């Protein structure tokens, strides 16, 4: 990889903007549901635990 590669024949802005934006959107959409799933499991566990203690 060298400067010539990153220059993309003068189209660097258009090419890297496209790839960068795609990477950000795909990575964010991959990690958010994984985090949400953990959060939901924790919340349900806490609720179930709470009702057990009360009864």
């Amino acid at each position, binding site marked *: 990889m060298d400067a010539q590669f990153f220059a993309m*024949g*003068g*189209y660097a802005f258009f090419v890297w903007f*496209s790839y960068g*934006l*795609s990477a950000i959107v795909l990575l964010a959409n991959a990690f958010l549901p994984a985090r*949400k799933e953990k959060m939901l499991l924790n919340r*349900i566990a806490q609720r179930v635990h709470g009702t057990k203690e009360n009864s």
Partner: protein
Amino acid sequence: MNLPFHKYGSPKYFYSWSLMLSPWLIGFCVLLFAVGLYTGLFVAPADYQQGESFRIIYVHVPAAWMSLFIYVVMASAAASGLIWHVKLGDMIARASAPLGAWFTFLALVTGSLWGKPMWGTYWVWDARLTSELILLFLYLGYIALQGAIDDRRVAARAGAIVALVGTVNLPIIHYSVEWWNTLHQGPTVSKLDAPSIAPSMLMPLLIMAVAYTVYFVVVMFARTRCEILEFERNAAWVKERALEKGVV
């Protein structure tokens, strides 16, 4: 009827088999992205007309294909919920819509970033671009409808009708470059005779398209699991699983 898909299509079984399958799919997906990006950025030669800018094709075309494919998945899943009351169908439709919207957004933005250097403009109100923009609004409409209606079953039914009516837009998008005059190039890959693209340029495109599809399946599975946890939170098996995996 005791068909196998009845069992594997229940939220409970979907939850466990999708979870089991995910690590394999993620590994496959990462591999495909690595090979697709490497061949697309390093191996494929520059285009004789468009130079290096044509490399945008490897993030633009897969995103555009996914925007249509996910709509088909969403509408079919929503239809199965509407017609046969398949609960998982409604959940898959709800889980797919935001992903479809994001891929449509990416197709539009990467397309305009390709259009500026090649056509001299970021945007033109022609049939292909306008119908793709309408697709984005269909996704957003579906998402807004799900958020606006509190009763889940009513929301699913209304969403399914919107999704099904919206399918008329799909052939319009696909054939728009043939039916109307446009700056957008015609089909190069799906032509019935030989595709008018060199194999060394086509291969990375196909690999990226499979990578995007596997990515969608993995993320849609995870989003559907979240839907299941939210809407089956009172089911015994969900509580058990949460006590097992959750941090109290």
